[in-house]
């Protein structure tokens, strides 16, 4: 009998090199950056609210999405085996990678086997997470990002700062400047009109698409009963990569599964409205193995663990694996809006990053991230799969190194937060100056924080201020916006 195999944490770009408050300082001081972020997040919040409001059964869709993902987590091993069998039967080759390094080795080997020294890439969080571009480069393979924002970031020698809009921290003038500096074929009289910038990107990538032999993608969903992969996108760069090259390699986190093709009816409604704030994104591609005479004939899927088994092992933190990377939680987060994406150090910024990165790496390696939040709950309200992010944040804070009394406090808070009803009641009581969150007093700085809580919370607030909403909760304020 073999001993049970322990779940393992992962590697790649998921660790904060600096504690969050330190990493956030430059961003908070950068007024241009803050203006760009404020403008962008405000725009997308309004767009999302408009298209969500027109769906009368939105809450029912969220309930279904949340339950389907919980079911996936519960049955993950069996669904993965089912997915592998279906995809293989349809002509795809399925590979498995324990961690980031192994996933990169597989992609490098497949690219070499295809005889290519360059790949075109569809924007994918998984390949950023495993630092695939760096691994390809080290192997002498050029990786070309084809999503406009990823292209901007790549040409700017920068890293993405948002899941959906990686170049959200740049405005049009800055993008024009990057194109003129780094894009050899950019027109000399390039204007900063978004249409002109998009046209420049189209011309720049056209030849590359038409001649590429290998493409690398991620996937938004992987369907267990059919072996289908789904990529949701806007520009058509995804379709180019998924259609024209001979070889297609898709890097997919094991949590991306859906049990059945029918389940897409829920997620293809939840994702676009939560993500770009559109009823539907311009293009969605679905493929199942190989279709003779249509698209890539050499189709590979790399299933990646890289810390996901460790997330699965924690019953409270587990729902972080439900995330469909819509980025709605980033766009409503007051901390993200001020600090920007880079401060989180990981490819996963914002509220989801604050709970996912520490779980992928183990809390000790990302101990500051669970504190990158005011626990206002706006992220939970917009999350299309209803991940209770505040609850998981408090749960993770318990695991970071703390004195025993503080741990006890956080256990109580964690219990309060596990129920939306208890949490709402606690916040109401706190505003009235009573209840489990107890008395607060206004600090001289003007920021309202909990300074002294009744025992056992008092042990916690002695060393740490818990930001508290003012006379209306953030959620209440938010609903009026």
């Amino acid at each position, binding site marked *: 009998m073999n001993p*049970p*195999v*322990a*779940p393992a944490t992962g590697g790649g770009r998921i660790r904060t090199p600096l504690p969050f408050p330190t990493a956030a300082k430059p961003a908070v001081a950068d007024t241009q950056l803050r203006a760009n972020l404020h403008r*962008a997040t405000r725009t997308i919040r309004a767009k999302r609210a408009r298209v969500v409001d027109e769906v009368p*059964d939105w809450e*029912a869709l969220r*309930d*279904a999405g949340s*339950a*389907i993902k919980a*079911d996936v987590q*519960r049955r993950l*091993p069996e669904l*993965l*085996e089912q997915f*592998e069998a279906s995809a293989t039967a349809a002509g795809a080759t399925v590979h*498995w990678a*324990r961690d980031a390094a192994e996933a990169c080795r597989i992609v490098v080997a497949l690219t070499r086997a295809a005889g290519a020294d360059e790949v075109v890439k569809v924007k994918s969080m998984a390949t950023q997470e495993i630092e695939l571009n760096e691994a390809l480069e080290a192997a002498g393979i050029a990786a070309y990002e084809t999503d*406009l*924002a990823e292209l*901007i970031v790549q040409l700017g020698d920068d890293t993405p700062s948002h899941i959906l*809009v990686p*170049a959200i921290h740049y*405005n049009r003038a800055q993008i024009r400047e990057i194109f003129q500096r780094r894009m050899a074929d950019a027109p000399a009289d390039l204007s900063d009109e*978004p*249409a002109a910038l*998009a046209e420049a990107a*189209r011309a720049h990538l056209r030849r590359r*698409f*038409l001649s590429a032999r290998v493409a690398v993608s991620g996937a938004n969903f992987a*369907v267990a009963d*059919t072996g289908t992969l789904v990529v949701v996108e*806007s*520009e*058509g*760069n995804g*379709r180019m990569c998924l*259609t*024209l090259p001979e070889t297609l390699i898709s890097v997919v986190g*094991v949590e991306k599964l859906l049990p059945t093709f*029918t389940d897409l*009816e829920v997620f*293809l*409604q939840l994702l676009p409205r939560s993500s770009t704030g*559109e*009823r*539907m994104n*311009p293009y*969605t*591609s*679905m*493929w*199942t193995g190989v279709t003779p005479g*249509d*698209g890539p004939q050499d189709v590979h899927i790399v299933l990646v*663990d890289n810390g996901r*088994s*460790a997330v699965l092992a924690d*019953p409270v933190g587990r729902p972080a694996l439900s995330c469909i990377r819509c980025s709605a939680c980033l766009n409503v987060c007051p901390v993200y809006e001020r600090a920007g994406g880079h401060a989180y150090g990981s490819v996963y910024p914002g509220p989801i990053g604050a709970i996912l990165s520490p779980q992928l790496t183990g809390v000790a390696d990302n101990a500051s991230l669970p504190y990158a939040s005011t626990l206002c709950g706006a992220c939970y309200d917009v999350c299309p799969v209803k991940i209770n992010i505040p609850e998981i944040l408090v749960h993770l804070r318990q695991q970071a190194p703390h004195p025993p009394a503080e741990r006890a406090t956080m256990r109580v808070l964690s219990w309060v937060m596990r129920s939306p009803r208890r949490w709402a009641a606690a916040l109401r009581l706190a505003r009235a100056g009573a209840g489990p969150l107890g008395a607060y007093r206004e600090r001289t700085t003007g920021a309202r924080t909990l300074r002294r809580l009744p025992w056992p919370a008092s042990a916690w607030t002695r060393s740490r201020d818990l930001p508290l909403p003012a006379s209306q909760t953030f959620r209440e304020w938010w609903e009026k916006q």
Partner: protein
Amino acid sequence: MVGKAVSARDEILARLRTALADNPPPVQVPRGYRRVDDRSDVIETLVDRLEDYRAVVHRGIDALPRLLSEVDRLAVPIDVPADWLAGYAGELHRDAPPLSAAALDDLDAVLTGCAVVVADTGTIILDAGPAQGRRALTLVPDRHICVVRTDQVVGLLPEALTQLDPRAPLTWISGPSATSDIELNRVEGVHGPRRLEVVLIGSGA
């Protein structure tokens, strides 16, 4: 089992099984969302949604000859209905033998049908079935003219999914290629066709 390497597959599956040692209870998925549309004006909704995302809508098959008269070089799938091409005087490129990507890049437009259309989101779904051809055909040319029969239009997304074969390569199109990557403004036209024109035919068009 000293000396025998465990495959990544077996190791990952074993890790995941260990992670589920708490034996989470079965999940009942509540499906209280709408699966059938009860609205009566499905076609009007479709037109509204298509135009909202900058597709150009033409009504009736008679619009087709006028549209095609602007096209010098046209790509079509091999099984394009002959009556769609009535009177077309330009250069016709049938996809047989398959046109290379470079050849497609030289053409002005592509004319196809579709499989099913979702009114609620203005989404046209191609499944490589009749009058659609393979995926590259509707991707590389800069202008896509798509003929939609009113009996192909359903109200909601769940209604469309039941009509699709998952084994077919599926392309869902909602308006022309676009990006919101620059200051979150939607700009039409990046890599996919920059013009999407829909010709609505059949009763009620």
